[in-house]
């Protein structure tokens, strides 16, 4: 539950909603800006109860760099997975991997799980009830430890830096 009861509980979300609205109607007409702003204020107020506490972004620049890195990884991930599917002599080594989490809050864990699903040959399959580890299914694993270390270094540590410490 978000404690503050102001008119703008989540300013970032409101701005995003306004941008999305303006893109959807494809116009910068003042009327649409007013309507979009009204929606951007109303929707977060109505849906506020569904939101977890939003951790503050400590370092926006790192967030931007993280986003670009994930985008790059998505492209390489696609190349790899496509090659695995196409290559008739492939020897896939699928595996379930238990990934011990370093992150603690729900929001960041969600972010990490989404990132894992979008990047090289891994899908997050289940978050343990105690929130201590994620079950990952990987398409082709050579070394389990290496994969865990890679996720830890490339994704989890930046997320932790951005949001938690």
């Amino acid at each position, binding site marked *: *539950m978000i404690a503050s009861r102001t008119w703008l509980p989540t300013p970032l979300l409101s701005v995003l909603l306004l941008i*999305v609205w303006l*893109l*959807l109607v*494809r116009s910068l007409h003042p009327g649409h800006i007013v309507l979009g702003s009204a929606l951007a204020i109303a929707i977060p107020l109505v849906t506020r*109860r569904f939101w*977890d506490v939003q951790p503050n972004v400590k370092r926006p620049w790192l967030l931007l760099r993280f986003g670009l890195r994930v985008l790059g990884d*998505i*492209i390489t*991930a*696609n190349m790899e*997975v*496509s090659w695995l*599917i*196409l290559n008739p002599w492939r020897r*896939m*080594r*699928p*595996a*379930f*991997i*238990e990934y011990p989490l370093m992150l*603690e*809050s*729900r929001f960041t864990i969600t972010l990490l*799980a*989404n*990132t*894992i*699903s*979008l990047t090289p*040959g891994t*899908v*997050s*399959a*289940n978050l343990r*009830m*105690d*929130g201590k580890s994620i*079950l990952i*299914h990987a*398409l082709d*694993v050579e070394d*389990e430890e290496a994969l865990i270390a890679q996720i830890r270094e490339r994704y989890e540590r930046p997320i932790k830096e951005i949001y938690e410490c």
Partner: protein
Amino acid sequence: MTQYVILEGVIAFFLVAGGAFTFIGSLGMAHLRDFYMRLHGPTKATTLGIGSMLIASMLYFWVVDGKPDIQEMLITLFLFITAPVSAHLLAKTGLHLQLRHADKTLGMPVELRKEEVGEKPVPHPDKGHG
């Protein structure tokens, strides 16, 4: 004039790449061995495939209409938000139903071990919604 030829080439490249990736994603869904592996095709290859097609669309309408139009970015945005969530839910459902996985799969998650299932769930320690 030459710039139009180059732009046509770029747009064609993105269209073909998009189509190819989407096709490969679907192909993977058709012929990989088990449920969990099939999940990988649609979540990744298709995301990039549709992304490329949308880039092509954006470029084309930019050239034709003469003004940049980034409305298509919204589709990519929504896709990037929804694809991992649906993949996660599907994988979770698969585990819950204890679907068979290929024999060569390494690792055996607790969810697929018969004796462990049905254990009382432990609530998340996070305070959450209070």
